[in-house]
């Protein structure tokens, strides 16, 4: 869905052919989500079928050029004026892995968490290094900068969640120890006291 809307939005700038659209999409998103050109042409032909773009014939070099229609413009406007739906949470391998790590015997959960934290931290360092380079304020640099920020905030959220998991696990373990030692005390008083009724 997002590719369809993104291509329509790019066509708002004026007619384009498939390769151009792909290049512009990747330029704005820093190649974070690579598109293959076949996908671009398939999407364009669906958009044409739905009356949102129209083919303008080939340019001098034989590229088929597409332009947005009035209905296509309405569609773009509607996309920008509505929030992205938070659908069913996508399957999150890390959440699933931790859920199983805490509930299956013999797994060092602390190690699982630290391993992930280290790997995500390394990715976060890479994004930040890219950010240090992307400091321009022309719209294209800004577009890529915002995508990078999104990656940064997502990685940060993952690390914060891992910190949170670790803290909860430690507290749970401490509570279990407390309960274990208080039940030991109970047993001791029981054995020294004479008349204990349970």
């Amino acid at each position, binding site marked *: 869905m997002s590719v369809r809307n993104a291509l329509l939005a790019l066509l708002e700038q004026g007619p384009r052919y498939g390769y151009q659209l792909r290049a512009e999409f990747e330029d704005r998103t820093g190649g974070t989500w690579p598109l293959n050109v076949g996908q671009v042409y398939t999407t364009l032909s669906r958009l044409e079928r739905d009356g949102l773009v129209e083919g303008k014939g080939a340019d001098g070099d034989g590229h088929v050029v597409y332009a947005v229609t009035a209905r296509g413009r309405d569609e773009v406007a509607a996309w920008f004026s509505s929030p992205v739906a938070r659908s069913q949470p996508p399957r999150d391998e890390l959440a699933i892995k931790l859920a199983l790590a805490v509930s299956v015997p013999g797994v060092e959960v602390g190690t699982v968490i630290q391993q992930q934290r*280290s790997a995500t931290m390394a990715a976060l360092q890479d994004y930040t290094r890219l950010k240090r380079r992307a400091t321009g304020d022309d719209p294209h640099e800004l577009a890529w900068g915002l995508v990078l920020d999104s990656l940064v905030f997502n*990685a940060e959220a993952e690390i914060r969640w891992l910190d949170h998991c670790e*803290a909860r696990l430690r507290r749970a373990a401490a509570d279990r120890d407390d309960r274990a030692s208080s039940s030991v005390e109970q047993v001791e008083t029981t054995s020294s006291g004479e008349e204990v009724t349970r």
Partner: protein
Amino acid sequence: MTAVLELETVTRVHGAGATEVTALHAVSFSAYAGELVAVMGPSGSGKSTLLTLAGGLDTPTSGAVRVEGTDLASLGQKGRAAMRRTSIGYVFQDFNLIPALTAVENVALPRELDGAGTRSARKAARAALEEVGIGDLAKRFPDEMSGGQQQRIAIARAIVGDRRLILADEPTGALDSETGEDILRLIRARCDAGAAGVLVTHEARHAAWADRVVFLRDGVIVDESGSDRPDALLEQAR
């Protein structure tokens, strides 16, 4: 290549007997010129203890802390204070500026205390304020400035006179995310220019500005992420 900062099996124990707490346990850690190292950990993990030891504000129970090859313990109280004025720059979360002094006076203070003439100290202070982008605010008092500007004064004070070790304790804690990022860019730039930096933070987004991230838990370094120092790579290649 010698480390600008080197902690060798440093242990710091607070209190004694039943109330004894080991804040750091046998930690070895180095920061080299041109490198920014982040130390991450939850509260109570020992990260602030590590920084106060590195800055000579506290002394280890055992082990050695060396700054540019000099063991801080060998310097004595006075020598350590001198070291803090000339070689070590400290940036705190709450800026720690003197409210009765202007920006340029705050930055010049360590050098003046060190016996430099007022004129040369002021000149160096103005250059440092220029470097952190607030040269035009030199005559303002801290309370006439925003949080971000105050932290820039604090950074200027930490780098004035070409100090080669910058220690920052949650320097962005009191700032919004955009302003905090500007502060990290400044610290980063200073390290790229040849200083060694140690940044203590619990925020991953800020730690990510570092070349290396060291994870502390219960006073022990449990892991490290990021690139190796250039000379470590060379050693591996040999």
